[in-house]
């Protein structure tokens, strides 16, 4: 991929020598010990590794929720580590969607309202907001469940609402942190198929943390973290 000027376009995501230290002095803990990673637009990447390997820390940094201690994080060529809190929030708002293991839906709030929420913070008008949220819920197969609150939905359905909320803004990247961790394998597979479909049909780049090899198998590329470093980086399927 090249620009008209002939220079290669910067990759979507580039981590260069990223370290992350928690605490200081005696109690200091180095969660990431120099991570280099390039992710191109349209990839489906699974991040695996045992607990404490740094995969969640890496995910937080990729999601602009946290900043590296040293090293560089470039998002489409922009140095994220140089942005302030507000600028990172703006970047999250315009490019990223999040799906969490614990769904993290607002309680006592209907599926439709949950899906509308990100649009509210983007200043989308009421009618348009409703139309887009309904479309997103339809895309995750929840037509007919719009007025149900999280307490009235199964785990799989709640995760679908969370995915609808993440894709309603049509993000560049979808970050999924153990999206199937709270689900049985049947529901987990359905969620994975949904993520694969969103990746294929909409070209959304998916970054997913998981410790289940079954689920990682849906990704085209798997990065394995051990002790704060990337141990292996393999393309499982042939590139699309």
């Amino acid at each position, binding site marked *: 991929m090249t620009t008209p000027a002939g220079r290669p376009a910067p990759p979507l995501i580039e981590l260069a020598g990223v370290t992350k230290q928690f605490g200081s002095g005696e109690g200091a803990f180095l969660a990431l010990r120099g991570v280099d990673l390039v992710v191109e637009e349209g990839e489906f990447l699974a991040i695996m590794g045992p607990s404490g390997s740094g995969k969640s820390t890496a995910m937080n940094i990729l999601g602009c929720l946290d900043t590296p201690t040293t090293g560089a994080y470039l998002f489409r060529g922009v140095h994220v580590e140089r942005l302030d809190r507000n600028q990172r*929030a703006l970047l999250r708002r315009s490019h990223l969607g999040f799906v969490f293991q614990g769904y993290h839906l607002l309680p006592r709030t209907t599926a439709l309202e949950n899906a509308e929420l990100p649009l509210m913070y983007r200043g989308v008008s009421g009618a348009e907001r409703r139309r887009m949220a309904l479309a997103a819920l339809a895309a995750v197969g929840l037509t007919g469940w719009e007025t149900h609150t999280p307490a009235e939905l199964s785990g799989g359905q709640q995760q679908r609402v969370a995915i609808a909320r993440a894709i309603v803004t049509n993000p560049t990247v979808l970050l999924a942190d153990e999206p199937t961790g709270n689900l049985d394998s049947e529901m987990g597979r359905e969620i994975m198929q949904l993520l694969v479909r969103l990746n294929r049909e909409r070209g959304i780049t998916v970054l997913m943390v998981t410790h289940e090899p079954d689920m990682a198998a849906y990704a085209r590329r798997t990065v394995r973290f051990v002790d704060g470093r990337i141990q292996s980086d393999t393309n499982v399927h042939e590139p699309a």
Partner: protein
Amino acid sequence: MFWSALKLALVAIRRNPVRSVLTVLGVVIGVAAVITMVTIGNGATLAVSQQISSLGSNLLMVRPGQRMGPGGGGAPAFRTDDVEAISARLGSLAAVSGTENASATIVYGAENWTTSVTGVQRPYFTARKLNLAQGRIFTDTEERAGNPVCVVGETVRRELFGQANPVGSRIRVKQFGCQIVGLLAASGQATMGVDQDDVVLMPLRTVQRRLTGSQDVGSIMIAVADAAATDQVKADLTELLRERRRIARNEDDNFNVLDTRQIAEAMSGTTRVMTMLLASVAAVSLLVGGIGIMNIMLVSVTERTHEIGIRLAIGALERDVLLQFLIEAVTLSAFGGILGAVLAAVASVILAKVMELPFVFDPGINLLAFFVSAAIGVAFGYFPARRAARLDPIDALRHE
């Protein structure tokens, strides 16, 4: 964004109705207290000035001392000959009367009543435009002789005689008997709780001899024949009294001459100061109410940490969260302000009725109290809102 935040605030407030009401109670009471104080104070001020204005614009009151008010700062009292000199030497006066006040318990049969006994001269009735319902005022002869005769007000009649006609009856004032010769027409007015019908009027000399035991005249009341000449009369009067009281050219007056307008201003000035004082005390409770709101907002932020984390993760900026909690605090306190204003209206109407004061609705203080309560929401909501906005999204999400 603003409307969404307002909607969110209403949802959050309605989710905990009991807590919300308890939270704003401080503001409700504060606002109600301030508005009630000011409304009642305004009523009292109006009542005072109405009362005094009803005396007419041509009345002058002369009292010893440099300022109006009790005491008089040790200045010598007037004498009866001062009153005579004023009548004799100043022109264009309609009426001049010395007055002297004493408090006494009066007894009729088995009933007794403590009231203000005022020694006056016959022109006093003219000056004050007092009308009689029954009987007559005391005669010139009775006044000169200092006879024990009196004219009583409606309240005294009611307390001692019920519905009966008191004229001709003898009452006992302290240790002497006194014949009632007249009954004043009811004025029905009360100034700052002082019933204008609760009076016994006696010849000045009678009061001096039998009650105060001195020749002192507490004050002199003068009615000017032509209101336009009031300023001239005041100047002449001052000159005459300075001469009689032997005040050197470089000394200040040791007496004061006030016309009706000045009396009204001085009296309503006093009530106005009282009003301000009471309102400031009430305003402190408004502040305490603000602290209550801050307290609950801090609790609410802690309780909703997880929700804040979700909002931050899905695209809320710091200022979105700040605005959300700030609007919630302002909505709460403004709601308290409205409730307080309603409560104040009810309390003021009842209090005004009980205290026999006119009810003066003051839109200014109602608006002010409302905006102050909203401002308190901003001031005391800012700290908790900022705390919410500064939460780290990762920590907040982990917080269940």
